[in-house]
């Protein structure tokens, strides 16, 4: 029988009541008394020198409060980068300045030149149109390889070139990999593009700055996944506001997918301007603005080689990747193609040597940073595509080739510097083979062929690393932040709990799943637990939500704090029952003395803590509130096996997804329904990347896919019903919950199987097509079929 409460149950999401009835409180729903509105005048050229910005006429327009330009920010810090990558030669990456408002040059379409603050948003926009800007257009740097050629125009004049870094990993493996390539019985090579994406959360970004002259306190309301990170970065590095004078509130947030991790100039602007004009300042992005100012994702150009011996054992992997940084370094951009990508290049396989080379490149495009999966989808895609290609070249079954090379013993130290604690790759593949009905495929293919369609089946595995940690290690790798998480558990006198977590929920369902864990530990009803998050004023310093870390890291902090609570409560219970502390047991919300029928209820103990009349005041303090910070010993390593079945119309090239099966190992599972939902959403985005989404710039750096007229988001009828299975469970060995993280798996695991299936379909129709770049649009399929 499935459980109906606690860990393993699937209660409906309590937050959905407010989300689905319009009762959410999003940043744009917040209006601060007396607020003014800002409109950003953004560059419409990709690259240019700013000769003059004349705001005279605009300043005289109705409603204008003040106009800011780059000059107003000359003494103010630029946006900091949170990760410094060291290159192959031991040198730090090239790190350009990232001004809040452009200074001297504009470097991408959408780069803000000036900001108009006015009484209404429309007046601000009217006045922005009246600003006279004299920009001398410069050649745009768009193509990454051309950007690195000698004599290329430079995005940043003060850097030596457009190369941010040239990273080798593991540099010491380089020669061994070369040797293995030479010794190989077979080498399969694949060149591919991991397409640039725009995250498109349903809620565009919003920021409101508010300043209290009486207390000298600044408050920023913002659409963020990690309010404490914003407070630290903006307070310490940009505006010079100490944290006790700066409060950052990220209320309900309508989806993030990574793009709301980063500290953006608009946040700093609103906080700065509110103080400068002594009025609250609000900014709400339009969708068009989101397209040209939210950090984009992916955008890698890769060549991968897989070496095999005569028995088809993988002997080496070598990759060379060009990773687009865009015009500036977004907060965590440098880490994505390196530590979140290179470390995963061993995949699920016992390949003995791996060498990853990444060249990060500046271009005149919007900055690129983490997007759901961040580096791991790029790693998975190339590896699982090249394995499929190898299987085809060698004429072996792609599943058998994978199984033959699976890692089977754990812990396993990969040649790319990480140690997988647990996993069972045969187990997830077995689970996949069951749910995907592989044996029925041939019949389904015949049925499709009878209708003039081609049918293909594609499989892939994935491994990912969640809950990036521990802090001291990531510090050595260049992170300028810690990666622990925090929780304060406050028990009220009548027994209810409030958990203040540094994790942030923006669709993940923390308000439902976190209470399940605590309720299980104490043996009380989940309704007695409330989750508070998103406000630096009432939560402990935490690192926020990304990288599928919330339950594994934030949940673990919660567990640790709750353990402290239980320990103290046992002392109180022992006192109340006049028993030894060691004899106290807690079960179903009752403290009892082992071997007796004495018991006292949870609520009696919590009341005693706050009304300490009969209480060991000489031994312990009154009250019941504890905080824990949890810094994991390692990443967690979810893994899985996915299968996609497509039908392809050979006349038009249109691909439809007929079946999609996902078998994941997430370790222990707290709320299976929420896990299903996370996987569904992730696969939806993965299918979006594989078939539909593509962010395209022309050679002048103009964004061609600048609206939903040209940027194709997946819709309900683009995706099938999913078969999802998480019965294969190898609990994480180093966190107290044994959980691994499930937020990104779907987006990481699905694109290769989609493309593998398309290639399979084409091959079955006699078309000698070995690769098509994503998005695999009908036009691209048709062009590939023409040879």
């Amino acid at each position, binding site marked *: 029988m499935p459980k109906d409460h606690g860990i393993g149950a699937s209660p409906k999401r309590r937050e959905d009541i407010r989300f689905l009835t319009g009762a959410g409180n999003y940043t744009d729903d917040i209006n601060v008394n007396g607020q003014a509105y800002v409109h950003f005048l953004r560059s419409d050229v990709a690259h240019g020198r700013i000769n003059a910005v004349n705001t005279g006429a605009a300043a005289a327009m109705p409603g204008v409060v003040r106009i800011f330009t780059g000059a107003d920010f000359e003494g103010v810090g630029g946006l900091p980068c949170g990760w410094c990558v060291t290159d192959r030669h031991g040198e730090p990456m090239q790190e350009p300045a990232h001004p809040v408002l452009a200074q001297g040059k504009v470097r991408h379409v959408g780069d803000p030149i000036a900001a108009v603050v006015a009484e209404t948003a*429309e007046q601000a*926009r009217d006045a922005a*149109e009246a600003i006279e800007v004299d920009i001398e257009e410069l050649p745009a740097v768009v193509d990454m390889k051309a950007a690195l050629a000698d004599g290329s125009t430079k995005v940043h004049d003060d850097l030596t070139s457009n190369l941010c870094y040239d990273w080798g990993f593991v540099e010491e493996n380089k020669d061994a990999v070369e040797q293995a390539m030479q010794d190989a019985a077979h080498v399969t090579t694949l060149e591919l593009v991991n397409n640039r994406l725009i995250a498109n959360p349903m809620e565009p970004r919003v920021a409101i700055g508010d300043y209290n002259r009486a207390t000298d306190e600044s408050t920023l309301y913002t659409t963020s996944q990690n309010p404490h990170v914003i407070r630290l970065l903006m307070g310490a590095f940009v505006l010079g506001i100490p944290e006790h004078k700066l409060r950052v509130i990220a209320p309900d947030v309508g989806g993030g997918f990574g793009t709301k991790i980063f500290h953006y100039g608009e946040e700093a602007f609103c906080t700065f301007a509110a103080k400068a004009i002594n009025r609250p300042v609000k900014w709400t992005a339009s969708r*068009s603005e989101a397209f040209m100012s939210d950090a984009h994702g992916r955008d890698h150009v890769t060549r991968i080689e897989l070496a095999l011996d005569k028995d088809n054992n993988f002997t080496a992997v070598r990759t060379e990747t060009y990773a687009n940084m865009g015009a500036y370094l977004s907060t965590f951009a440098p880490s994505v193609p390196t530590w979140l990508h290179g470390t995963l290049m061993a995949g699920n396989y016992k390949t003995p040597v791996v060498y990853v080379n990444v060249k990060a490149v500046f271009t005149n495009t919007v900055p690129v940073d983490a997007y759901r999966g961040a580096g791991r989808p790029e790693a998975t895609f190339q590896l699982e595509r090249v394995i499929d290609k190898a299987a085809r070249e060698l004429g072996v079954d792609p599943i058998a080739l994978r199984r033959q090379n699976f890692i089977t013993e754990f812990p396993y130290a990969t040649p790319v510097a990480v140690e997988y604690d647990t996993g069972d790759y045969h187990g997830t593949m077995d689970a996949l083979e069951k749910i995907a009905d592989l044996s029925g495929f041939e019949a389904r293919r015949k049925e499709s062929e009878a209708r003039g369609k081609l049918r293909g089946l594609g499989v892939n595995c994935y491994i990912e690393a969640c809950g990036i940690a521990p802090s001291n290690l990531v510090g050595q790798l260049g992170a300028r932040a810690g990666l622990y998480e925090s929780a304060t558990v406050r028990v009220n006198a009548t027994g209810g709990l409030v958990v203040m977590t540094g994790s942030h929920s923006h669709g993940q369902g923390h308000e439902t799943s976190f209470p399940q864990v605590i309720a299980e530990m104490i043996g009380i009803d989940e309704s007695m637990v409330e989750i508070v998050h998103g406000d630096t004023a009432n939560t402990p310093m935490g690192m926020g939500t990304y990288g599928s870390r919330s339950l594994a890291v934030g949940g673990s902090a919660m567990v640790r704090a709750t353990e402290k609570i239980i320990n103290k409560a046992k002392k109180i219970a022992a006192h109340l029952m006049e028993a030894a502390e060691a004899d106290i047991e807690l079960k179903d919300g009752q403290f009892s003395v082992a071997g007796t029928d004495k018991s006292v209820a949870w609520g009696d103990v919590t009341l005693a803590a706050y009304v300490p009349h009969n209480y060991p005041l000489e031994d312990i303090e009154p009250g019941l509130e504890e905080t824990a910070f949890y810094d994991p010993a390692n990443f967690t390593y979810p893994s899985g096996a996915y299968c996609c079945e497509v039908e392809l119309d050979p*006349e*038009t*090239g*249109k691909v439809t997804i007929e079946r999609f099966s996902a078998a994941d190992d997430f370790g222990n599972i707290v709320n299976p329904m929420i896990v299903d939902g996370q996987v569904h959403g992730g696969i939806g985005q993965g299918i979006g990347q594989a*078939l*539909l989404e*593509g962010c*395209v710039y022309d050679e002048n750096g103009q964004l*061609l*896919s600048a609206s*939903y*007229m*040209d*940027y*194709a*988001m997946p819709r309900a009828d683009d995706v099938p019903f999913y078969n999802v299975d998480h019965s294969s469970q190898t609990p994480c060995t180093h966190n107290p919950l044994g959980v691994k993280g499930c937020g990104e798996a779907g987006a990481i695991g699905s694109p290769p199987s989609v493309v593998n299936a398309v290639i399979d379909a084409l091959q079955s129709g006699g078309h000698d097509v070995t690769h098509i770049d994503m*998005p695999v*649009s*009908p*036009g691209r399929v*048709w*062009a590939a079929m*023409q040879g």
Partner: protein
Amino acid sequence: MYEFEFVKPGSVADAVTALGEEDAQVLGGGQTLIPTLKQRLASPGKLVSLAGIAEMQGVSTDDAGRICVGGGTVHADVAANAGGYPALAGLAGNIGDPAVRARGTIGGSLANNDPSACYPAAALASGASIVTNAREIAADDYFQGMFTTALDEGEIITEVKFPVPEAANYQKFEQPASRFALVGVFVAKYADGVRVAVTGASQEGVFRWRAAEAALSADFSADAVPEAPAADGMISDLHGTAAYRAHLVAVLTRRAVAACG
């Protein structure tokens, strides 16, 4: 948006008067015009809404058996009420999404003449008459290239009259993002010959594929459809090359003919 005045006259005559003023513009369902205003790409001084003009609403049949659609009729109404011309009703029922079909009008679509819109293909393939407050224009004379028509400034499409064919079918291959027609082909078979109109493909907007018309008029079968037309002059963009669009023209024409039964 910039500021504008808004009027909602109750008759075509009043609308024409209102449109006589400088900078006045017709507002149909607003599905194209409102986003344009929001992006500040147009700045009419006055919008003259047609939504209150009863005489421009609805679907009827005239004495000649033609399906007559009022210029202010929304797509959802055509989908529901043009059963006498199933291919037309089907086309209307597959434009955009329910919200678009509840607001967008046939007059707005034909006046706009988006090169990827669906109605222009139906009107041209049917040899429809576009009736305005001033005159009646044959479809063959009406479409004059992308976003260009025979309408004069301030002229209002009040009605569109469709001769009903013996058989007809519209095949729309959707552009993945906008779901307008990447290419759409409307085939209509009349007693005096077959007409084939293509939308989405040409830089000149909707056009008649004369080679296919001649072949199909002689032999109305999918096999009779000629090879793909030349790619010269076809649209090439993110979603498909000119060659791909030319290829789709032939594929969709064959499918339309086959679907005519």
